[in-house]
Protein backbone atom coordinates (compact mmCIF):
# COMPACT_ATOMS: atom_id res chain seq x y z
CA UNK A 1 0.00 0.00 0.00
CA UNK A 2 1.36 3.46 -0.89
CA UNK A 3 1.11 6.22 1.66
CA UNK A 4 1.98 9.92 1.67
CA UNK A 5 2.64 12.00 4.76
CA UNK A 6 2.11 15.73 4.22
CA UNK A 7 4.69 17.95 5.94
CA UNK A 8 4.11 21.60 6.90
CA UNK A 9 6.38 24.06 8.66
CA UNK A 10 5.58 23.19 12.25
CA UNK A 11 4.58 19.55 11.74
CA UNK A 12 6.23 17.51 14.48
CA UNK A 13 4.64 14.06 14.35
CA UNK A 14 5.49 13.41 10.69
CA UNK A 15 8.50 11.19 11.48
CA UNK A 16 6.56 9.16 14.04
CA UNK A 17 3.74 8.42 11.65
CA UNK A 18 6.18 7.61 8.83
CA UNK A 19 7.92 5.13 11.16
CA UNK A 20 4.59 3.56 12.12
CA UNK A 21 3.61 3.14 8.46
CA UNK A 22 6.99 1.79 7.40
CA UNK A 23 6.95 -0.76 10.23
CA UNK A 24 3.84 -2.18 8.63
CA UNK A 25 5.44 -2.22 5.18
CA UNK A 26 3.61 0.80 3.74
CA UNK A 27 5.67 2.35 0.94
CA UNK A 28 5.70 5.86 2.31
CA UNK A 29 6.66 9.21 0.78
CA UNK A 30 7.03 12.49 2.66
CA UNK A 31 5.35 15.33 0.72
CA UNK A 32 6.25 18.98 1.38
CA UNK A 33 3.25 21.34 1.51
CA UNK A 34 4.47 23.43 -1.44
CA UNK A 35 4.25 20.47 -3.83
CA UNK A 36 1.46 20.65 -6.38
CA UNK A 37 1.43 16.98 -7.34
CA UNK A 38 0.69 14.09 -5.00
CA UNK A 39 2.51 10.79 -5.45
CA UNK A 40 0.09 7.96 -6.24
CA UNK A 41 -1.29 7.14 -2.80
CA UNK A 42 -3.77 4.74 -1.27
CA UNK A 43 -3.52 6.61 2.02
CA UNK A 44 -2.72 10.23 2.81
CA UNK A 45 -1.80 11.18 6.35
CA UNK A 46 -1.91 14.73 7.68
CA UNK A 47 0.24 14.52 10.80
CA UNK A 48 0.16 16.24 14.14
CA UNK A 49 2.10 19.35 15.09
CA UNK A 50 1.59 23.07 15.04
CA UNK A 51 1.48 23.98 11.36
CA UNK A 52 2.22 27.68 10.89
CA UNK A 53 2.42 28.10 14.65
CA UNK A 54 -1.36 27.71 14.92
CA UNK A 55 -1.67 31.30 13.61
CA UNK A 56 -5.21 32.59 12.94
CA UNK A 57 -6.84 29.28 13.97
CA UNK A 58 -5.22 25.84 14.31
CA UNK A 59 -4.98 24.35 10.83
CA UNK A 60 -6.46 27.37 9.02
CA UNK A 61 -3.34 28.35 7.07
CA UNK A 62 -2.28 24.78 6.25
CA UNK A 63 -5.79 24.14 4.87
CA UNK A 64 -5.06 26.68 2.11
CA UNK A 65 -1.68 25.23 1.07
CA UNK A 66 -0.89 23.99 -2.46
CA UNK A 67 -0.85 20.33 -1.59
CA UNK A 68 -4.16 20.45 0.28
CA UNK A 69 -5.91 21.38 -2.98
CA UNK A 70 -4.71 18.04 -4.33
CA UNK A 71 -5.60 16.20 -1.12
CA UNK A 72 -9.16 17.59 -1.32
CA UNK A 73 -9.47 16.35 -4.93
CA UNK A 74 -8.33 12.80 -4.24
CA UNK A 75 -10.25 12.64 -0.94
CA UNK A 76 -13.45 13.51 -2.80
CA UNK A 77 -12.61 10.68 -5.23
CA UNK A 78 -12.45 8.22 -2.33
CA UNK A 79 -8.74 8.11 -1.38
CA UNK A 80 -8.22 7.23 2.30
CA UNK A 81 -7.21 10.24 4.38
CA UNK A 82 -6.15 10.17 8.04
CA UNK A 83 -5.71 13.40 9.99
CA UNK A 84 -4.23 13.13 13.45
CA UNK A 85 -4.35 15.99 15.97
CA UNK A 86 -3.33 19.07 13.94
CA UNK A 87 -4.22 16.93 10.91
CA UNK A 88 -7.79 16.66 12.24
CA UNK A 89 -7.89 20.43 12.73
CA UNK A 90 -6.66 20.94 9.15
CA UNK A 91 -9.30 18.55 7.78
CA UNK A 92 -12.09 20.49 9.50
CA UNK A 93 -10.67 23.78 8.18
CA UNK A 94 -10.73 22.41 4.61
CA UNK A 95 -14.35 21.31 5.06
CA UNK A 96 -13.50 17.67 4.29
CA UNK A 97 -14.73 16.96 7.81
CA UNK A 98 -17.56 18.97 9.32
CA UNK A 99 -17.35 20.80 12.65
CA UNK A 100 -14.49 22.60 14.37
CA UNK A 101 -11.99 22.07 17.15
CA UNK A 102 -12.18 24.69 19.88
CA UNK A 103 -9.85 25.43 22.75
CA UNK A 104 -9.87 22.76 25.44
CA UNK A 105 -12.56 23.39 28.00
CA UNK A 106 -10.05 23.88 30.85
CA UNK A 107 -7.84 26.13 28.65
CA UNK A 108 -4.83 23.91 29.31
CA UNK A 109 -2.59 22.16 26.85
CA UNK A 110 -3.17 18.46 27.47
CA UNK A 111 -0.29 16.04 27.03
CA UNK A 112 -1.16 12.68 28.59
CA UNK A 113 -2.35 9.15 28.03
CA UNK A 114 -6.11 8.73 27.86
CA UNK A 115 -8.55 5.94 27.06
CA UNK A 116 -10.87 5.77 24.09
CA UNK A 117 -13.56 3.26 23.23
CA UNK A 118 -13.83 1.83 19.71
CA UNK A 119 -17.47 2.67 19.00
CA UNK A 120 -17.77 1.83 15.32
CA UNK A 121 -15.37 -0.64 13.78
CA UNK A 122 -17.14 -1.16 10.47
CA UNK A 123 -14.81 1.08 8.47
CA UNK A 124 -11.42 0.97 6.75
CA UNK A 125 -9.58 2.45 9.74
CA UNK A 126 -10.89 0.36 12.64
CA UNK A 127 -11.85 -3.08 11.32
CA UNK A 128 -9.07 -4.79 13.30
CA UNK A 129 -10.43 -3.48 16.60
CA UNK A 130 -13.18 -5.25 18.50
CA UNK A 131 -16.41 -3.36 19.04
CA UNK A 132 -16.32 -1.53 22.40
CA UNK A 133 -12.61 -2.29 22.83
CA UNK A 134 -10.92 0.15 25.22
CA UNK A 135 -7.65 1.55 23.88
CA UNK A 136 -4.95 3.61 25.54
CA UNK A 137 -3.75 6.43 23.31
CA UNK A 138 -1.86 9.65 23.93
CA UNK A 139 -3.19 13.16 23.44
CA UNK A 140 -1.16 16.36 23.05
CA UNK A 141 -3.28 19.34 22.11
CA UNK A 142 -4.62 22.72 23.08
CA UNK A 143 -7.58 22.76 20.67
CA UNK A 144 -9.25 19.37 20.75
CA UNK A 145 -12.71 20.34 21.91
CA UNK A 146 -14.89 19.03 19.09
CA UNK A 147 -17.88 21.19 18.22
CA UNK A 148 -20.55 20.91 15.56
CA UNK A 149 -24.20 21.84 15.06
CA UNK A 150 -26.92 19.66 16.66
CA UNK A 151 -28.12 18.26 13.29
CA UNK A 152 -24.63 17.12 12.31
CA UNK A 153 -24.01 15.69 15.78
CA UNK A 154 -27.16 13.59 15.43
CA UNK A 155 -26.06 12.50 11.97
CA UNK A 156 -22.65 11.44 13.34
CA UNK A 157 -24.34 9.28 15.98
CA UNK A 158 -27.08 7.89 13.71
CA UNK A 159 -24.78 6.99 10.84
CA UNK A 160 -22.05 5.46 13.06
CA UNK A 161 -19.48 8.07 12.06
CA UNK A 162 -17.84 8.30 15.48
CA UNK A 163 -15.14 5.62 15.70
CA UNK A 164 -13.63 6.75 19.03
CA UNK A 165 -15.02 8.33 22.19
CA UNK A 166 -13.07 9.31 25.31
CA UNK A 167 -13.77 6.98 28.22
CA UNK A 168 -12.21 5.64 31.42
CA UNK A 169 -10.11 2.49 31.77
CA UNK A 170 -13.25 0.37 31.94
CA UNK A 171 -14.94 1.99 28.96
CA UNK A 172 -17.38 4.25 30.80
CA UNK A 173 -18.14 7.32 28.72
CA UNK A 174 -18.95 10.33 30.86
CA UNK A 175 -18.05 13.98 31.36
CA UNK A 176 -15.43 13.08 33.97
CA UNK A 177 -13.43 11.24 31.31
CA UNK A 178 -13.84 13.90 28.67
CA UNK A 179 -10.43 15.60 28.70
CA UNK A 180 -11.18 18.58 26.46
CA UNK A 181 -14.93 19.20 26.51
CA UNK A 182 -15.72 17.60 23.12
CA UNK A 183 -19.41 17.12 22.37
CA UNK A 184 -20.51 13.56 23.25
CA UNK A 185 -16.88 12.71 24.26
CA UNK A 186 -15.93 12.60 20.56
CA UNK A 187 -12.25 11.78 19.98
CA UNK A 188 -12.53 11.21 16.23
CA UNK A 189 -15.02 11.36 13.36
CA UNK A 190 -15.46 9.97 9.87
CA UNK A 191 -16.97 11.67 6.84
CA UNK A 192 -20.15 10.30 5.29
CA UNK A 193 -18.30 8.03 2.85
CA UNK A 194 -16.06 6.80 5.69
CA UNK A 195 -12.86 7.35 3.69
CA UNK A 196 -11.67 10.26 5.85
CA UNK A 197 -10.87 9.93 9.55
CA UNK A 198 -9.90 12.81 11.82
CA UNK A 199 -8.87 12.09 15.40
CA UNK A 200 -7.19 14.01 18.21
CA UNK A 201 -5.39 11.07 19.94
CA UNK A 202 -2.10 9.81 18.48
CA UNK A 203 -2.23 6.12 17.46
CA UNK A 204 1.27 6.44 15.96
CA UNK A 205 2.67 6.90 19.48
CA UNK A 206 1.28 3.52 20.51
CA UNK A 207 3.03 1.06 18.26
CA UNK A 208 5.76 -0.28 20.50
CA UNK A 209 5.33 -2.18 23.76
CA UNK A 210 8.74 -1.03 24.99
CA UNK A 211 7.99 2.68 25.04
CA UNK A 212 4.20 2.65 25.45
CA UNK A 213 1.81 -0.03 24.25
CA UNK A 214 0.75 -1.23 20.84
CA UNK A 215 -2.91 -0.22 20.84
CA UNK A 216 -2.28 1.95 17.78
CA UNK A 217 -0.95 -0.84 15.55
CA UNK A 218 -4.38 -2.14 14.60
CA UNK A 219 -5.42 1.20 13.16
CA UNK A 220 -2.67 0.91 10.56
CA UNK A 221 -3.18 -2.85 10.21
CA UNK A 222 -6.89 -2.20 9.54
CA UNK A 223 -5.94 -0.12 6.52
CA UNK A 224 -4.03 -3.07 5.08
CA UNK A 225 -6.89 -5.46 5.75
Amino acid at each position, binding site marked *: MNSSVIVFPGSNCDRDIAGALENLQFRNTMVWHKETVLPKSDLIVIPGGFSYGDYLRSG*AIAAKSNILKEVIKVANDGCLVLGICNGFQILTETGLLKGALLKNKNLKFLGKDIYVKAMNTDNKFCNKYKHAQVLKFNIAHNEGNYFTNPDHLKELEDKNLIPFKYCDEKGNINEENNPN*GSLNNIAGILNDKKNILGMMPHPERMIDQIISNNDGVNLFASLLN
Partner: protein
Amino acid sequence: MKFSIKVTLKKDVLDPQGKVVQQTLQNMGMDKLKSLRQGKYFEVEINENSESKAKSKIDDMCKKLLVNLIIEDFEISKI
Protein backbone atom coordinates in the same frame (compact mmCIF):
# COMPACT_ATOMS: atom_id res chain seq x y z
CA MET B 1 -9.80 52.21 1.76
CA LYS B 2 -9.57 50.83 5.27
CA PHE B 3 -11.93 48.47 7.02
CA SER B 4 -12.17 46.77 10.35
CA ILE B 5 -13.37 43.23 10.81
CA LYS B 6 -14.75 42.11 14.14
CA VAL B 7 -14.86 38.35 14.64
CA THR B 8 -16.84 36.90 17.52
CA LEU B 9 -17.68 33.38 18.59
CA LYS B 10 -21.28 32.44 17.80
CA LYS B 11 -23.67 32.68 20.73
CA ASP B 12 -23.97 28.93 21.30
CA VAL B 13 -20.20 28.32 21.16
CA LEU B 14 -18.51 28.04 24.52
CA ASP B 15 -15.89 30.75 25.11
CA PRO B 16 -13.63 29.43 27.88
CA GLN B 17 -11.13 32.29 27.44
CA GLY B 18 -13.82 34.91 27.83
CA LYS B 19 -15.13 33.08 30.87
CA VAL B 20 -11.74 33.12 32.60
CA VAL B 21 -11.28 36.83 31.85
CA GLN B 22 -14.77 37.50 33.19
CA GLN B 23 -14.11 35.51 36.37
CA THR B 24 -10.81 37.32 36.91
CA LEU B 25 -12.46 40.73 36.56
CA GLN B 26 -15.17 39.63 38.98
CA ASN B 27 -12.53 38.39 41.43
CA MET B 28 -10.88 41.82 41.12
CA GLY B 29 -14.06 43.34 42.48
CA MET B 30 -15.84 44.37 39.26
CA ASP B 31 -19.09 43.03 40.66
CA LYS B 32 -21.35 44.82 38.16
CA LEU B 33 -19.87 42.76 35.30
CA LYS B 34 -22.63 40.67 33.80
CA SER B 35 -20.98 38.82 30.93
CA LEU B 36 -17.90 38.93 28.72
CA ARG B 37 -17.06 37.25 25.39
CA GLN B 38 -13.65 37.43 23.72
CA GLY B 39 -13.20 37.95 19.98
CA LYS B 40 -10.71 38.94 17.26
CA TYR B 41 -10.14 42.17 15.38
CA PHE B 42 -8.53 42.78 11.97
CA GLU B 43 -7.69 46.00 10.14
CA VAL B 44 -7.54 45.62 6.39
CA GLU B 45 -6.44 48.14 3.78
CA ILE B 46 -7.58 47.52 0.23
CA ASN B 47 -6.80 49.06 -3.18
CA GLU B 48 -10.31 49.73 -4.39
CA ASN B 49 -12.20 52.97 -5.04
CA SER B 50 -15.73 51.67 -4.81
CA GLU B 51 -16.82 51.00 -1.25
CA SER B 52 -19.29 48.29 -2.22
CA LYS B 53 -16.68 46.44 -4.30
CA ALA B 54 -14.16 46.75 -1.47
CA LYS B 55 -16.68 45.42 1.02
CA SER B 56 -17.54 42.44 -1.12
CA LYS B 57 -13.81 41.63 -1.47
CA ILE B 58 -13.41 41.76 2.29
CA ASP B 59 -16.51 39.66 2.73
CA ASP B 60 -14.84 37.07 0.48
CA MET B 61 -11.62 37.21 2.56
CA CYS B 62 -13.65 36.60 5.70
CA LYS B 63 -15.55 33.67 4.28
CA LYS B 64 -12.52 32.04 2.68
CA LEU B 65 -9.94 32.42 5.44
CA LEU B 66 -10.33 34.94 8.23
CA VAL B 67 -13.49 33.50 9.75
CA ASN B 68 -14.58 29.94 10.49
CA LEU B 69 -18.30 30.25 9.82
CA ILE B 70 -19.08 27.11 11.80
CA ILE B 71 -18.08 28.76 15.05
CA GLU B 72 -17.65 32.48 14.33
CA ASP B 73 -19.64 35.53 13.18
CA PHE B 74 -18.12 38.67 11.65
CA GLU B 75 -18.90 42.32 11.12
CA ILE B 76 -17.19 44.61 8.58
CA SER B 77 -17.03 48.40 9.10
CA LYS B 78 -15.34 51.19 7.18
CA ILE B 79 -12.77 53.13 9.19
